[in-house]
């Protein structure tokens, strides 16, 4: 911050150029994200149906939202899905990356195999996994066909575990990217660190846990933002796999928003739900993002 005040002409010029270059970011952040958010929040207090209108109805939409069974189930599902996705994709991604980093043969092949699902859209991912998990002709049918007739595996048709069926497909699609990011992080670790820990006789797992992972902090930050934003927005996958079913057991908030806005034609309700999502994201993200991106200085 000091450089804006020290008055050297080159500093002023430098900041001017930087500001000019940042115009797209400033516009995106202020007009689209902040503007769009304010617009959404304002309209969440209205009874807008098919078209956005400013007929204010106070907190009616929120009252209905929190009285809705579907919304409560959505939140619970997002919580389970989110926590498990975070844990599993980080752990699996990291373990795969660590294994690939052992100077193995066929690294390119394995890496490509783990990464390719990321190239396919969620719609497709959901469709394929819907098949594989279908008890009548998927895994269950095949295992039963092999003679184990009591074998039961129908996550998409069981209300209690349907969200895990979606998790299986979500992890399939997303962990490849995490693995790649982690692998890149591991490749960036200085070789001297490994040499030093070997000399000191520190076990390999301790080196990973207490030295390497803390050093990979920026990778984890990037990964976390990518995974977490994907979790909050999860929609297509659920629609393609279960359409929220069986019953309403696999509803998620983004789907609640979309359904309210375009199926029920109750924009106000959709905006209220998305405002609640935004508030939650803000409470979690903003303090963290500010610490992460706002406090550290690189150059004077």
């Amino acid at each position, binding site marked *: 911050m000091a450089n804006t005040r020290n008055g050297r002409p080159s500093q002023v010029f430098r900041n001017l150029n930087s500001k000019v270059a940042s115009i797209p970011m400033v516009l995106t952040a202020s007009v689209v994200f902040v503007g769009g958010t304010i617009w959404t929040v304002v309209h969440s207090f209205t009874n807008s149906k098919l078209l956005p209108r400013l007929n204010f109805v106070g907190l009616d939409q929120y009252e209905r939202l929190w009285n809705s069974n579907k919304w409560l189930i959505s939140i619970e599902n997002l919580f389970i899905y989110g926590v498990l996705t975070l844990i599993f994709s980080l752990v699996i991604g990291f373990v795969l990356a660590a294994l690939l980093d052992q100077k193995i043969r066929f690294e390119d092949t394995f890496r490509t195999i783990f990464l390719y699902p990321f190239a396919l859209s969620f719609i497709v991912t959901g469709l394929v996994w819907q098949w594989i998990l279908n008890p009548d002709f998927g895994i269950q049918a095949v295992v039963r066909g092999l003679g184990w007739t009591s074998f039961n595996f*129908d996550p998409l048709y069981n209300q209690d575990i349907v969200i895990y069926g979606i998790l299986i497909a979500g992890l399939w699609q997303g962990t490849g990217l995490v693995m790649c990011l982690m692998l890149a992080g591991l490749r960036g670790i200085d070789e001297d660190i490994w040499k030093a820990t070997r000399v000191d006789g520190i076990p390999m797992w301790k080196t990973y846990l207490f030295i390497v992972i803390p050093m990979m902090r920026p990778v984890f930050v990037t990964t976390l933002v990518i995974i977490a934003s994907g979790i909050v927005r999860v929609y297509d996958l659920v629609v393609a796999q279960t359409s929220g079913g069986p019953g309403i057991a696999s509803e998620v908030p983004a789907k609640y928003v979309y359904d309210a806005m375009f199926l029920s034609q109750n924009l106000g309700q959709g905006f209220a739900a998305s405002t609640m999502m935004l508030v939650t994201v803000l409470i979690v993200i903003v303090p963290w993002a500010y610490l992460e991106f706002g406090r550290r200085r690189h150059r004077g």
Partner: protein
Amino acid sequence: MRYHLTTAALAATVAFAAPAAATDLEVTHWWTSGGEAAAVAELAKAFDATGNKWIDGAIAGSGGTARPIMISRITGGDPMAATQFNHGRQAEELVQSGLMRDLTDIAEKEGWKDIVRPSSLLDSCTLDGKIYCVPVNIHSQQWLWLSNAAFEKIGVPVPTNWDEYVAAAPALEQAGIIPLAMGQQPWQTSLAFQVLVVALAGSDVYNKVYGDKDADLAAGPEMAKVFEAADKARSMAAKSNVQDWNQATNLVISGQAAGQIMGDWAQGEFAVAGQVAGEDYTCLPGLGVNEVIQTGGDAFYFPVLKDAEKSAAQATLASTMLAPETQVAFNLKKGSLPVRGDVDLAAANDCMKKGLDILAKGNVIQSPDQLMSADSLTQVNDLFVQFFNTPAMSAADAQKTFASIVAAAD
């Protein structure tokens, strides 16, 4: 393609004269399956024959996918020339905002009021005495489709009504046949329930509950009977592990399931599988109890356009859609019933003829789309998909929730 003026035989029947210059009109709709596309092609052919050009904008996936696109286009100030909507209350607000074209002058000129049958179809296109849409077909939902093979297998004659069907369920189950096929999507379970209401409680109750939003009746004993039947249907469908309606229909076609409650579009599936009505499958309108059909269907709306030439072409398109030739050609392909009574449907199959008969007798009701807002309907859909998938949810509880939705409905 532009010089179709010679095929003006059809154009001549169109009261509104075709403009001299060919005008491109973009039409959006969500008819993308084989039969549907063939039906749309008939509309396009008829329109192209007037010297204009139909630019097709098909988007699959009715509610969730196509609707935001259509609404965005219209409110974004760059509307298409015509767009499909289920008629009913879906487009009400667009009309109120003055974004939709008033078709009253064309309708009066051509006497739509006299030719469109039943008249409720035109009523749903009407707001404050003005007509804003063109109904193109009638789709009915009140059908029970039965696999003849399944009943042959257990040695029971094919049921002729709901009660016989329910009575056969244990035997079917013993033979390893799913008594009732049911897809998991919310609208399917909700459809099954509506059909049960109409068939078992009667049209009056249906009209009072869905139309007048009579919450007391919804909570009353007559509806309790329907909820018990729905409970029965739930246990009959317990082993039906499919998502889409056509997968459920396929269970019936292959004889894995004995029956399905579904709209008349299921016929397309039977036809594709080479099955014949009466021989391979049986259709029971109104579950064989109360032969009534709903008169929902599809309609086209015409956004207000600035371009005068395009506006003129819109009028041509509107009247082309209602022309008798177009109606016959379109509906035969679509498997639906025409909206005008003065056309000949000799090529219709058995089940379609049953439908035409019921229509001629006037045993018709309005579809929920026409009676309730999309918001309330989604709540109803959500309730029934939950009910049908949660054995622990009692019929009484479901009825209580249903009554509260009806009470709050608009």
